[in-house]
């Protein structure tokens, strides 16, 4: 089995053609479209991004079998990784989740009052869960990760507790899918319903990739640092 992977020497446009979902990553790296024939390396350099990190994240996104090697991990700029993760968080909250909430309101407004009320409340609860999840990472995990690099990590915390606290924020999203697919009454608004479902499926997929980036890049990286400090 040949394992195809992206490299920094490839044309950035080719990466997008291989997996169009990589488009979603560009704004989080501050990359614009219109990059012509430029390679990943050139584009990254122009924008002050590590091409190793960018390629690695694209590989995690596109290839489920990909696991970064030790050598690659050593080259990762932790600060840039954290910045990417933070930007992803605000993108999910302010962009994707916002859009879905808006679509849900449009749908629920057509239904009975009780329906509107219960659906809106359900989504608010989901949003709160996501916010809490992201806040935990940004207030506890990321500072720890940034500190461990400078040898100043708080004692008593380890990335293992992160793995334990990594709550499941997909459950409610999945529930919402089933509610809309199977149980929402009314024959109207078919296209609105399919639109929102596409957005939910796609958000879910993206959040899964986001978790994979944390599992495959962030955690191994920090575990390595922890081992280094224990010595």
């Amino acid at each position, binding site marked *: *089995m040949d394992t195809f992977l992206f490299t920094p020497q490839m044309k950035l446009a080719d990466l997008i053609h291989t997996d169009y979902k990589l488009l979603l990553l560009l704004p989080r790296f501050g990359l614009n479209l219109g990059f012509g024939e430029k390679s990943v390396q050139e584009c990254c350099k122009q924008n002050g991004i590590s091409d190793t990190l960018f390629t690695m994240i694209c590989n995690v996104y596109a290839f*489920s*079998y990909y*696991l970064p090697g030790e050598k690659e991990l050593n080259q990762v700029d932790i600060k840039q990784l954290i910045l990417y993760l933070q930007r992803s968080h605000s993108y999910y909250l302010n962009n994707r989740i916002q859009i879905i909430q808006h679509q849900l309101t449009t749908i629920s407004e057509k239904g009975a009052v*009780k*329906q509107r*009320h*219960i*659906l809106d*409340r*359900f989504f608010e*609860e989901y949003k709160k869960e996501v916010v809490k999840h992201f806040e935990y990472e940004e207030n506890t995990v990321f500072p720890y990760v940034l500190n461990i690099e400078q040898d100043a990590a708080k004692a008593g915390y380890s990335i293992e507790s992160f793995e334990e606290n990594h709550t499941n924020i997909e*459950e*409610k999203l*999945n*529930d*919402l*899918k*089933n*509610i809309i697919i*199977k*149980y*929402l*009454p009314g024959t109207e608004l078919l296209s609105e319903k399919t639109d929102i479902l596409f957005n939910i499926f796609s958000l879910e997929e993206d959040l*899964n990739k986001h978790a*994979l980036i944390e*599992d*495959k890049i962030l955690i191994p990286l920090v575990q390595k640092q922890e081992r280094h400090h224990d010595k």
Partner: protein
Amino acid sequence: MTNKKYKIILIEPSAIIATGLQELLKSYKDFEIIGVFADCEHYSEHITRLHPNILIINPAVIDFRHRHCLEDLFDSSESCSLIALVYQYVEPEVLKHYHTTIDIRDSKDKIIKKIESVANTATVSSEQPDAAELSEREKEILVSVAKGKINKEIAEEHHISIHTVITHRKNISRKTGIKSVSGLTVYAILNNLLDISEVE
């Protein structure tokens, strides 16, 4: 139904062994390897979503710290059979979790026979229809769950054991595809099992 295919997922860190086993199974139409992974730690979700009939795992990938991983996998894919793939001595305590064991020194025929024997038991359970509506009892339990009651309270209210409550809840979530309490509340209200004033 003829031409039945058993979907197999292989979790094996050695590329040589993984490729070898794939090659060996290639000529058997009944088996289709739908995924090969080097470890199971980060793929567990992915694996269950592929709905394999058979999982062939090298027990070495599940170290002591992550042995729960196997149980998680096993629990979420109940119709899936587990086969251990071993190179050397593995404690019987570990192998107890598997339906059978393939030793890499086994002959080709023996390996196929072992997989077939497991495959036969796997399909029986996977073909049970899952589409049933909620029973009246399940609807009653669901209403209690949606009202925010905990298992112990539900058990007392309906004069059943906590274990039975858990079984009902599992079945409700399996049939509806809804797991969270707030999701079930939405379900109950949409289906007029519950009035919104009761959950305010």
